[in-house]
C-alpha cells in the first residue's frame, strides 16, 4: 500500500482481485480457492445459500475477518496491485479505503452529525468546522437522507427508522471517501420501500464507487448488480465460487448446472 503498485486507479479494470484465497476459522475452512476479480465502478453481487461463505469473502476484502480471533486468510487479495494481506499492510488503512455497510443498521448512539463526522475525525481530518459541515451534508445528500434529517442533525442516530438508519450508515461509510464499499446484506433487516431506496442509492453510488454487495435475495441481485458471483457450500462444508459473470448472463444463461438449479429455485 505504500505505492500504488504502478497501476493508477483510473487505468485498472479491477478494484479487487483475489488469488486462490482460503479463509479458516480455527481448523475449519470456511471458504476455499476463491479467485474473483471485482470490476471498478460496478456493482458486484455475491449470492448463494446461507452458510456458503459469501459474507466471509466480503469481509476478507477489508480484513474485517481479523476481528474474529481464530480467523486466518490464506492466498492473496490485490488492491491497486498490492496484496492486502502482506505483513506490512495496516488493516486500518485497508478499512479506511474500503468501507463497509453491515447487515443490520448499526449507527453509533451519537447524533446524526457525529455519526458521519466520526470516521473523518479519527482518520486525521484537517478541515475546518465549515468543511466538516459541508462533508456531512454531502455524505447525507449522497445517501439520499439529507432532506429527511437536515433539521435534526443533533438528534441521535438511533431515533431514525430502520431504513433511514441504514442510509445513515451508508453516509457514514461515504464520509471517509473510500474507493470500494462493501455491503453485507444491507437490506435484509429493512422493509421493501426502504430496500428500494437503498437499491436506487446503489445505482447512484456506482458512478464513483466500486460496490460489492452480499445478498440472499436473488431478485435484488438480478435487479441491482452488474456482475454476480454465485457461491455454494462444497462437500467439505467449505464455500466455493461456482460461477462468476455479468449478472444478466448468469441469470439467463448460467454455465453451471448448480447455478441453474439455484436460480430456478430448486434448492437453497
Amino acid at each position: 500500500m505504500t505505492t500504488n503498485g504502478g497501476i493508477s486507479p483510473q487505468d485498472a479494470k479491477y478494484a479487487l482481485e483475489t488469488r486462490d484465497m482460503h479463509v479458516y476459522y480455527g481448523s475449519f475452512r470456511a471458504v476455499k480457492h476463491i479467485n474473483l476479480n471485482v470490476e471498478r465502478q460496478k456493482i458486484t453481487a455475491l449470492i448463494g445459500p446461507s452458510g456458503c461463505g459469501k459474507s466471509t469473502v466480503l469481509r476478507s476484502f477489508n480484513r474485517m475477518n481479523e476481528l474474529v480471533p481464530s480467523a486466518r486468510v490464506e492466498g492473496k487479495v490485490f488492491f491497486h496491485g498490492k496484496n492486502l494481506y502482506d505483513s506490512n499492510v495496516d488493516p486500518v488503512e485497508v478499512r479506511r479505503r474500503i468501507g463497509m455497510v453491515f447487515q443490520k443498521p448499526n449507527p453509533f448512539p451519537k447524533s446524526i452529525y457525529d455519526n458521519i463526522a466520526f470516521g473523518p475525525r479519527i482518520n486525521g481530518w484537517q478541515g475546518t468546522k465549515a468543511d466538516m459541515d459541508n462533508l456531512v451534508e454531502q455524505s447525507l445528500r449522497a445517501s439520499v437522507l439529507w432532506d429527511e434529517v437536515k433539521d435534526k442533525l443533533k438528534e441521535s442516530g438511533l431515533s431514525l427508522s430502520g431504513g433511514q438508519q441504514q442510509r445513515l450508515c451508508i453516509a457514514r461509510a461515504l464520509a471517509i471517501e473510500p474507493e470500494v464499499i462493501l455491503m453485507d446484506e444491507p437490506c435484509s433487516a429493512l422493509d421493501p420501500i426502504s430496500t428500494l431506496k437503498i437499491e436506487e442509492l446503489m445505482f447512484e453510488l456506482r458512478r464513483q464507487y466500486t460496490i460489492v454487495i452480499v445478498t440472499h435475495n436473488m431478485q435484488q441481485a438480478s435487479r441491482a448488480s452488474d456482475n454476480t458471483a454465485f457461491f455454494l457450500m462444497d462437500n467439505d462444508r467449505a464455500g466455493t465460487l461456482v460461477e462468476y459473470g455479468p449478472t444478466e448472463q448468469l441469470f439467463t444463461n448460467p454455465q453451471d448446472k448448480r447455478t441453474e438449479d439455484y436460480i430456478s429455485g430448486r434448492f437453497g
Partner: protein
Amino acid sequence: MSSVSQTGNTSSGMPTDEAMHRNIAQRRQRGRIWQGVLFASTTIGMLVLVILLATIINESFGLIAVQSTVDPATIADRPLEELSKEELIVILEDNLKRRVYQRLEREQPLAERDQAALLEIVRVEVVQEEVVGSWPLNETLFNRAAIEAEVAEEFPRAEIQFRSWINPDFLTNPMSSVPALAGVRTALLGTLWMIGITILFAFPIGVGAAIYLEEYATDTWYNRIIQTNIANLAGVPSIIYGMLGLAIFVRAFEPLTSGTLFGLTDPTTANGRTILSAGLTMGLLILPVIIIAAQESIRAVPNSLRQASYGLGATKWQTIWNHVLPGAMPGILTGTILSVSRAIGETAPLIVVGASTFIVTDPDGPFSKFTALPIQIYNWTARPQDQFRDIAAAAIIVLLIVLLTLNAIAVLLRDYIRKRRSI
C-alpha cells in the same frame, strides 16, 4: 442526485497518501502506548495483591529478641532443656510463690505433666521470658547483622530467635495482653458461633424471599417495592446495619438476645451484646445478597421443568420443593457461601453491636459475650506496639485461610452438585 460529491475532492480535508500514512503511524503509536497504560492499570490489582500478601507475611515471621527476667544460669547448672522432670519440679518448688505453685498443682499435679509442659511453665513463670524486640522478615533476611548489633547494645542479655508468629499455639491460645502469648482461639470460636447463627437466620429467610419474589409475586406495587428495596439494602453501608443491630437486637430485644427471657442470668452476658445479636445483625446484612443470588438461580431453572411438574398434577409448592429448588440449589449455595465469607470479614457492624475486645473465656452459646477474628485484627492493628502488628498479621493469615477455604468449598460444592445432577 447530481449533488454526489467527487471522491477526488480532496479539499474536504481527508489526508491522503503520505499524510495518511503518517496519520496512521501516529495513531498506531498512540494505540500501543495506551494499550500499555490500560494493561498496567489492570495489573495494578495483581501488584497490590502481591504487596498486600507480602506485607502480611513480612510481619508474620521474623527475628525476635527474648530476654528473661531471671537468668536461667542462676537456677540451674545446665541448659533448661536438658533438665529432667524431677529437676524442673524442684526448680518450680524453689522459685514459685506458694499460691501460684498450689494453683498449678490443683489444675493438674505437676508430677503427672510431661517434661515439655514443665519446661514451658518454668520458662513462663520462673525465667519469665519476655519478647523485647521484633523485626519483620525482610530485615531478618537482609539486615541480620544490624539487628544483632542493636540487640547486643540495648538488651545484652537477650537472645535472638526466629519466630513464626503464626503457629499452633497462636490458634489454640486465648486472648492475652502479652502479644507473644496471645492467640485467636476465642475469636475463632466467636466467629464460628456467630456465622452459625447468621446462616440459620439468613439462609431460610433469604431463600424464602427469593422463592416468593420469583414464584409467587405478581407485578403489584408492593412486590415492586420489595424488589427495589432489596437492591437498595444491598447498597447500605455495613456500619448502618450495626446501628440497627445495636438499637433493635442489643437494646430493644435485650431480654431475648441476652437470654434472660430463657431464665439465663449469667452476669457475664453483658446486656444484649451477645453472639445472638451479632449473628442476627450479620444475617440482616447478608440477606439482600442471598436473596439476589437465590433469585438469579431460581430464574435460571427452565420453565419447562415447572410445566412438566404441573402437568403431573403437582401443587405449586410441590413443584417448587421437588423441582425448582433442587435445580437452583448449586447457585443458591454458592451465593450463600460467598455472602457468608463476606460476613466473616465484616468488622464495622460488630464494633457497633459491641463485640468485646478483650475476653479470654470461650463462647459457649448464643448468649455469650464474644469477640471475632476481624475484631481481634482491628484491635491489634490499632495498638502502637510492633508485636501487636505482628500478631495482627498472623490473625489476618488465619482469616484469609478461613475465607479461602470457604470459597474453595463453594466452588467444589457447586461442581459436585452439578455433576451429580447431570448423571
